[in-house]
């Protein structure tokens, strides 16, 4: 079951080959999702549905459950109630169509790999174990490196990078994957202003190509310009909807300014 | 001369005694080495080149022999000298047999070379295999074996005379490991081992408690550590019971200063007599 085979509509695209411009859009549905860690209830009754071609901001205070939700969508942790449907089917862990950027990876920074090697890893889901790494793949990697301004650093070992450069390398890996769905946990972390703006621009391009993009972050000011939808959570779902409707001061206030600090634990 | 290689110093010596000038013996395992491991250098293998026979002591002492067979060229014959010598079972505490104490079913003591009778048998075997490899000198080998047997007899007589100095009731040989079964049988000792059979066995506290009891009960005078082995536990038992610690005995025949049957037996007998015989007899 290779990724290419399931992308039966790839031909229409010029760049970022894996998106989907077609009439019947692919839906991601989350129904009544709940997640528990030992004694901590991290998420409860999360419900939303979105589809490719849209971008969604995941907003909430620290400990609201944003990372938990993204990990569930990436198939890395299992919820204890509810379900997640992608294209109508339950999500499996190794869905080739999903790219995930962790908030804090457990990286062995001394691993003998260069920036380019790291980005090339993103091609894995498309190549599988065997397929030859082609000119086409090299082009995609090249583009991901360029878009994150890593061309000059491509032969550096990954520990010989600054914090922001590392973050860019991991974003480039997620881009090179050319996934249908991009799950990005605080992607702007550590990026300088120009890189942040660059990434915002990229988000627009990605959704224009027909990808589905979900990103958590803390900068409330950039929600309006950058995203179509917003999901405000604080363990429970506060609101989900198009930014214009859902991202109201009242809703934001009810996510953050609560005299009851209970959510923070 | 007939070229033979040997994996045990005592066997090498026997081959030299039996073969005399007609054989050239290559020591693969040199005195001081460890008979349980076979790790020859390519040089040793090269030195072995042209050997007709490869002599081993046998009785599963050299656990690696099975593997070695394939590697030998077609011209080499492997001979386990001890194979045809009658085996005796391992014995830890000969004269009693409680339920929880174990005799070693189907396990035989491989240290056959502690007995002059066995050495005589081995001399005969040696003469046979040498003759088979070099029929021209058969007579010389037979004579060699006879001469060697005679020497072994004399040695046995000397040893018996020495052992006679020990009171009959004191002829109890307490050693660390059970490697002296053939010796005890030949010279009329009762054998007892403190640590069990394997070198790496760690004695149980009940076994040690029993041993202490027995040492007291039988009025044992001395206990014997082994050459090149750590005498620690024996030393503590000696301290607990007030018995002497004898000179270390040579078990494997690979001691640097005593790696022929003669030197080994003489050393062991002297050590045992010195520790067990009444002071007046020495």
């Amino acid at each position: 079951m290779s990724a290419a085979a399931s992308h039966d509509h790839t031909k229409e695209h010029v760049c970022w080959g894996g998106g989907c411009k077609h009439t019947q859009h692919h839906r991601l549905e989350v129904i009544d999702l709940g997640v528990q860690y030992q004694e901590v209830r991290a998420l409860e009754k999360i419900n939303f549905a979105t589809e490719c071609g849209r971008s969604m901001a995941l907003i909430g205070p620290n400990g609201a459950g944003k990372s938990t939700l993204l990990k569930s969508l990436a198939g890395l942790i299992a919820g204890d109630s509810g379900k997640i449907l992608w294209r109508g089917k339950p999500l499996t862990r190794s869905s080739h169509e999903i790219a995930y950027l962790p908030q804090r990876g457990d990286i062995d920074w001394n691993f003998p790999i260069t920036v380019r090697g790291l980005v090339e890893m993103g091609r894995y889901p498309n190549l599988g174990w065997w397929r030859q790494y082609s000119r086409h793949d090299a082009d995609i990697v090249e583009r991901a490196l360029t878009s994150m301004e890593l061309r000059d650093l491509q032969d550096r070992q990954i520990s010989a990078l600054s914090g922001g450069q590392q973050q860019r390398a991991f974003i480039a890996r997620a881009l090179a994957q050319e996934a249908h769905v991009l799950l990005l946990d605080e992607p702007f972390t550590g990026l300088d202003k120009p890189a942040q703006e660059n990434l915002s621009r990229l988000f627009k391009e990605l959704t224009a190509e027909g990808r589905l993009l979900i990103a958590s972050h803390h900068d409330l000011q950039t929600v309006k310009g950058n995203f179509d939808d917003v999901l405000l959570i604080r363990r429970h779902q506060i609101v989900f909807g198009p930014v214009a409707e859902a991202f109201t001061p009242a809703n934001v206030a009810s996510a953050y300014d609560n005299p009851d600090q209970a959510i923070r634990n | 001369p007939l070229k033979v290689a040997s994996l045990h110093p005592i066997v090498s010596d026997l081959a030299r005694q039996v073969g005399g000038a007609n054989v050239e013996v290559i020591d693969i395992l040199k005195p001081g080495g460890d008979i349980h491991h076979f790790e020859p250098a390519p040089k040793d293998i090269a030195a072995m080149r042209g050997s007709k026979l490869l002599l081993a002591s046998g009785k599963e002492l050299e656990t690696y022999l099975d593997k070695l067979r394939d590697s030998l060229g077609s011209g080499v014959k492997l001979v386990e000298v001890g194979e045809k010598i009658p085996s005796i079972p391992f014995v830890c505490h000969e004269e009693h047999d409680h339920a929880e104490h174990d005799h070693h079913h189907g396990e035989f003591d491989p240290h056959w070379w502690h007995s002059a009778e066995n050495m005589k048998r081995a001399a005969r075997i040696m003469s046979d295999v040498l003759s088979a490899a070099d029929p021209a000198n058969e007579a010389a080998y037979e004579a060699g074996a006879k001469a060697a047997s005679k020497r072994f007899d004399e040695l046995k007589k000397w040893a018996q005379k020495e052992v006679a100095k020990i009171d009959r009731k004191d002829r109890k040989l307490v050693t660390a490991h059970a490697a002296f079964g053939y010796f005890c049988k030949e010279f009329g000792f009762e054998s007892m081992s403190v640590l069990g059979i394997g070198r790496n066995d760690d004695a149980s506290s009940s076994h040690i408690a029993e041993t202490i009891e027995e040492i007291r009960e039988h009025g044992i005078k001395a206990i014997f550590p082994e050459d090149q082995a750590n005498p620690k536990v024996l030393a503590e038992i000696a301290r607990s019971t007030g018995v002497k610690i004898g000179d270390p005995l040579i078990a494997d025949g690979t001691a640097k200063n005593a790696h022929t049957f003669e030197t080994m037996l003489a050393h062991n007998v002297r050590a045992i007599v010195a520790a067990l015989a009444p002071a007046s007899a020495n």
Partner: protein
Amino acid sequence: MPLPTITDFLAEPIAKRALLACLMIGFANGFVSAFVVLRKSALKIGTISHSLLPGLAVAVLIAGLSQWSALVGAIFAALIVGLGSIFLSRTSRLDQDTAMGVLYTTAFAVGLQILRGLNVRQKLDEWLFGSIIGMADSDLWIAFGISAIAVITLTALQRPLIIYLFEPNIAASLGVPVRLLNYATFAVTILVLVSSLQAVGCILSVGLMVAPAATMYLLTNNARALFWGGGILGALGSMIAFFLAYPLGWSPSSTIVIVLGSFFLLAYIFSPKYGLFSKRGSVA
């Protein structure tokens, strides 16, 4: 002839000494095991306990074969391999495990070669491995001294040590003398290791130096509790093993490790917080 009762046996000085040795060695090893577990160096300890041969070889080369030369050679070898691998990993991009892997095997090969040259039997290590039941007075005193040094040093250094174990960089920025700690604690570990080698042998000593704190690790989030809890578990387990081994006719050293391993298993299954039956995050 019936087996003497355990009370009879306890009247023997050899038994008293063994019991005392169990207590002391169990406590010291358990205490140090906290450090070993926090440092995640269980296998390093195991490796060091296998890398004594080259030291023995050099000792024999210089001073001939005796229990003392063996002891000194062993400590020397352990320090070389241990500190050498710290040094190699600090000055290269290799982690300490890999550096140690290369170092100890190479040292071992050289040691074997020396011994071949000397024509000495290769199973020298048995000179080191006594048995907890054959401890001489001097062994007991050495064990006591080493235990005292270990407990005192690790107690005195505990505060900086825990910070250091948590994150060396943060520790350095807090003014913790990182390098000193590294070497000091390492030296203490080696001493305790060598003293327990004499009691229970090469592989089992590793169990004694890991299992107690590993058990505590499943029960607490307090790094300090690991030290004292480990010590107490170690001493308790060793004593229980001593009394169990007698009627069973087992070897006391194996029994110690089996008992400590069972403690671990119990904690692994039943720990209220981190046991198999506690509800932890249901990770897919």
